[in-house]
């Protein structure tokens, strides 16, 4: 009986030692591992703190770069719309004036003016489209919800993917940076739906839940793998996540072949609404 008990007690003691070792390693309470030939210093806590600090710096830099990019886009959009758009409109008016002066005998000239006028109209539309893509004017004028409604309608028209936009947000005022961030996330998410999902339907929902703003973009496509979600090549996803993180938010992506893909972004309302709105 005694002979059986001793090995058991020894085993139990070893188990306890192993548990203690795991506990101190997990809680970073170890600063050296004593080997047979070498002693290895471990500075896990310090390494983790350094990593955390570098990550925070990178995140701050990413947020700064995003805001700089948005500002530059806004400036370029304004210049394009005001300067170039204005010049093209003047050109269009000039062509109309010339067209009015052309006599019926000058048929070839009339044809040329008509074709130049068509070309100018196309250019005006293109400039407006580029300016809108760079910085959707309606975002400033009409607010995020209406801009998203319009964006979703436009997306449906371009791609043929049936879309539904849902929201429970009443009259809230989004802060400029917050509104742009959410808008850009929706744009990127819809781009991914069009490019990769092979979906026929998509639902975009922007809801207020307790103290958070919840954005979901779900589709009925082929889903997404965990590898794709965490891949360093998924720049669109990285960009969306950075935008969410810059507002103290989170972004998750889930997907399967049978259920399609769902993107969920959760951002504290206090980070996206203006003081009055929140």
């Amino acid at each position, binding site marked *: 009986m005694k002979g059986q008990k001793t090995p058991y007690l020894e085993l139990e003691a070893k188990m306890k030692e192993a548990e*203690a*070792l795991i506990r*101190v390693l997990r809680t970073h309470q*170890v600063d050296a*591992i*004593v080997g047979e030939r070498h*002693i290895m210093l471990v500075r896990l806590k310090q390494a983790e703190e350094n990593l955390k600090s570098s990550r925070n710096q990178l995140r701050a830099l990413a947020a700064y770069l995003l805001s700089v990019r948005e500002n530059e886009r806004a400036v370029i959009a304004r210049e394009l719309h005001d300067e170039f758009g204005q010049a093209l409109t003047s050109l269009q008016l000039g062509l109309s004036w010339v067209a009015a002066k052309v006599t019926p005998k000058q048929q070839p000239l009339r044809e040329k003016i008509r074709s130049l006028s068509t070309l100018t109209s196309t250019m005006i539309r293109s400039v407006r489209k580029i300016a809108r893509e760079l910085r959707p004017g309606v975002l400033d004028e009409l607010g995020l919800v209406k801009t998203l409604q319009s964006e979703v309608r436009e997306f449906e028209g371009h791609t043929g993917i049936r879309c539904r936009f849902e929201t429970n947000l009443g009259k809230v005022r989004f802060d400029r940076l917050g509104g742009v961030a959410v808008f850009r996330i929706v744009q990127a998410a819809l781009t991914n739906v069009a490019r990769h999902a092979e979906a026929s339907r998509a639902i975009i929902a922007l809801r207020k839940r307790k103290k958070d703003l919840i954005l979901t973009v779900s589709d009925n496509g082929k889903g997404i793998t965990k590898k794709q979600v965490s891949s360093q090549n998924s720049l669109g996803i990285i960009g969306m996540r950075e935008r969410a993180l810059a507002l103290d938010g989170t972004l998750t992506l889930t997907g399967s072949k049978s259920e399609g893909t769902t993107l969920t972004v959760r951002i504290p309302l206090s980070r996206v609404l203006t003081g009055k709105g929140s």
Partner: protein
Amino acid sequence: MRKTRRREGGRSAAAGGATHVFRLFVAGNESNSAQAKGNLVRLCEEHLKGRYQIETVDVLKDAVTAHENNVLVTPTLILIRPLPKVTVLGNLSDTSQVLAALRLTGDER
């Protein structure tokens, strides 16, 4: 390299408690090792005033003693006396667990 710190003959020793002999294995002045040293002295001052002895072994200078005592990581504290021997790993920041492990709770006061 061993450093011994003795505190004997104080009020508690006069009260008749046994002297506790500790051996603390550290790695130079790394943060956990420094914390363990500080925590051990504090606990001893609070619970074993005048009747404890701490021997500090720096494994970076004396690896042999560490091997002899089967030390795998630092900080490691071994209660040499009174028997039975007890080994505690970590920076000794969890006071209640350390006191329980070293049998310094309750009547040991």
